[in-house]
């Protein structure tokens, strides 16, 4: 038998070695993985324990220790919630419509650009795609200018309920617009996987472009809507920058602003801040845990 490696060691020797290697390798692998879990979770864990500690408990214990009964308190949560309450409601009020609108628009655009074939769509697509990567700072000043010229509150003066929420409406429109590129890309990558033949079959079956969208593409997009909505919700919910610039009245503060306020107040009460951080992050964490797979799909679809 031609042993190509020239070592000439018997097969039996090599086997024994191999077996032992295998077991230790697995043990090390799991140890590393668990260590990494520690690394990724420790800030959250430390934050969680701290949020349940009194100020004294925070000072006197190490951050990773769970609170002992002596230091245990839920007061930080109550205080943080009191501060964030308004922001939470406001955030929900603009994040939900912004998310839905940008997903819908994205789906429209992707359908128009993918499933109906015509020249020049790549050009337009590139315009959409480049929008995904826009740093928001580059539009901040004009954005502020734009919304001061377009006086939504004034336009809506006839309906005071809306006029009072003009800031949130501005945020909704703004986030919708800036969400369109990524939603378009997400839907497009999905629509590309839908067979052309299916669309052609529908055409031959007599359906027009709108009918095809409504009866074929839209129902088939539902899983992608889940992905897009989840992704977009997280993005919009987590944003601070636009809110900083566009929201001027405190009654319209969104949750990230309220959370910042919690941090900005005079004394550094970490326990309250941590509780606040968890409260503000709760919707996204829940979504993430329940729809982890779709979330991952969303963020990777962006590339």
């Amino acid at each position, binding site marked *: 038998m031609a042993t190509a490696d020239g070592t000439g060691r018997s097969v039996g020797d090599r086997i024994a070695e191999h077996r032992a290697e295998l077991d230790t390798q697995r043990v090390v692998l799991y140890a590393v993985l668990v260590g990494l879990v520690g690394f990724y979770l420790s800030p959250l864990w430390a934050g969680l324990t701290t949020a349940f500690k009194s100020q004294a408990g925070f000072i006197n214990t190490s951050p990773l220790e769970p609170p002992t009964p002596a230091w245990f308190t839920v007061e930080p949560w109550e205080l943080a919630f009191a501060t964030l309450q308004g922001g939470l409601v406001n955030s929900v009020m603009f994040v939900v419509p912004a998310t839905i609108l940008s997903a819908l628009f994205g789906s429209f655009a992707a359908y128009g650009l993918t499933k109906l074939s015509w020249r020049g769509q790549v050009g337009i697509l590139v315009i959409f795609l480049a929008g995904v990567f826009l740093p928001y700072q580059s539009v901040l000043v004009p954005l502020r200018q734009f919304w001061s010229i377009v006086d939504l509150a004034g336009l809506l003066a006839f309906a005071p309920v809306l006029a009072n929420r003009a800031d949130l409406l501005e945020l909704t429109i703004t986030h919708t617009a800036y969400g369109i590129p990524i939603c378009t890309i997400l839907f497009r990558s999905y629509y590309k996987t839908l067979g052309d033949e*299916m669309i*052609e079959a529908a055409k031959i079956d007599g359906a027009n472009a709108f009918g095809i969208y409504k009866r074929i593409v839209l129902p088939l997009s539902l899983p992608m809507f889940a992905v897009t909505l989840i992704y977009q919700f997280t993005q919009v919910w987590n944003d601070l920058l636009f809110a900083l610039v566009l929201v001027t009245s405190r009654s319209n503060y969104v949750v990230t602003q309220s959370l910042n306020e919690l941090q900005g107040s005079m004394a550094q009460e970490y326990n309250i801040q941590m509780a606040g951080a968890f409260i503000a992050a709760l919707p996204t964490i829940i979504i993430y845990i329940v729809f982890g797979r779709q979330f991952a799909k969303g963020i990777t679809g962006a590339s």
Partner: protein
Amino acid sequence: MAELTLGNVTKRFDDVVAVDDVSIEIDDGEFLVLVGPSGCGKSTTLRMIAGLETISDGRIAIDGDVVNDAPAQQRDIAMVFQSYALYPHMTVRENMRFGLEESTTLEKAEMDSRVEDAAETLEIDDLLERKPGELSGGQQQRVALGRAIVRDPAVFLMDEPLSNLDAKLRSGMRTELQRLQEELGVTTVYVTHDQTEAMTMSDRIAILDGGELQQVATPLECYHRPTNRFVAGFIGEPSMNFFDVSLEDGRLVDSDIEFEYPLSSVVRDSVGETTELVLGIRPEDVELLDARETAHDFPVVVDVVEPMGNENNLLVRFPDTDTESTFNVIVDGMCHVEAGKRYVIRIPESAIHVFDRETGAALHNREIEDETELLASRV
């Protein structure tokens, strides 16, 4: 049901001419199969008929009405796709109803009854409430057919509808499709690259190559009476053997290998003045002997014997040539042939084809007894 006419149809994609001046008249109720090598323009032709692709030149008419500019939605056609293209979110029933809902104003009850009738015919009536994802390939195939049938279109178009099925299922569906088309009598254009399908299903075969139509004829006509070398080589598996020869003194000669094949006057006459020729003979028409007997017998070396059980596939070559220039011979499976040995083959003159080497045109095709009977009609 309708007549379908392609008149000088051409399709250009940028600089590629995908379909080049193709004219075919397809009769009402006829089953026409389009075959040809990959990329020859089969799908493009079909898609132009369907209205999925614009027509660069020429005209397509259904029952005399030119439909060049009608959108797919308004041509009265139904198409079965290679991938079936079923709507995955709809049940079988909804899939089949979709076309009716979109293109007619039928009443619900009528739609349902049509769908159910078609489903019964196709023996998928118990699957009506399932989604395509829950069906096997063959069942999906039937649903795709059903979807086409319920619309009662003027023309059926099918683009390799069986190619996703496994061999066994394919041969079953082949028969069924053919039966159905005959029963319904709907004019059908069927694209395939599978010879068996082309030969067995069609009323006529249209053979395309490089976008150009080569021949439109019944299957056996194409097999036995090819109009040119391309068709002769394309139809038949293993394909016809070709030898480049020159005509010298009424004999076909390949001077490199001392091959001389005397021609009878009949063949001689049909060849005419052309001297650069190609001799064609199908593998199954070559006979294997132990010794030379006639002038049409030649010594050969058997290079490879591929026993298939029912027959043996031989790769043989003339002595003193290299392994590159082998040709195929098929002999009976019970006949024991040894690789590497010398044998004698006979190329019967009754079975030879002769082509013009330059144009490829067939100058002489083989003899057939009972010719009209064998070729004229589809069996």
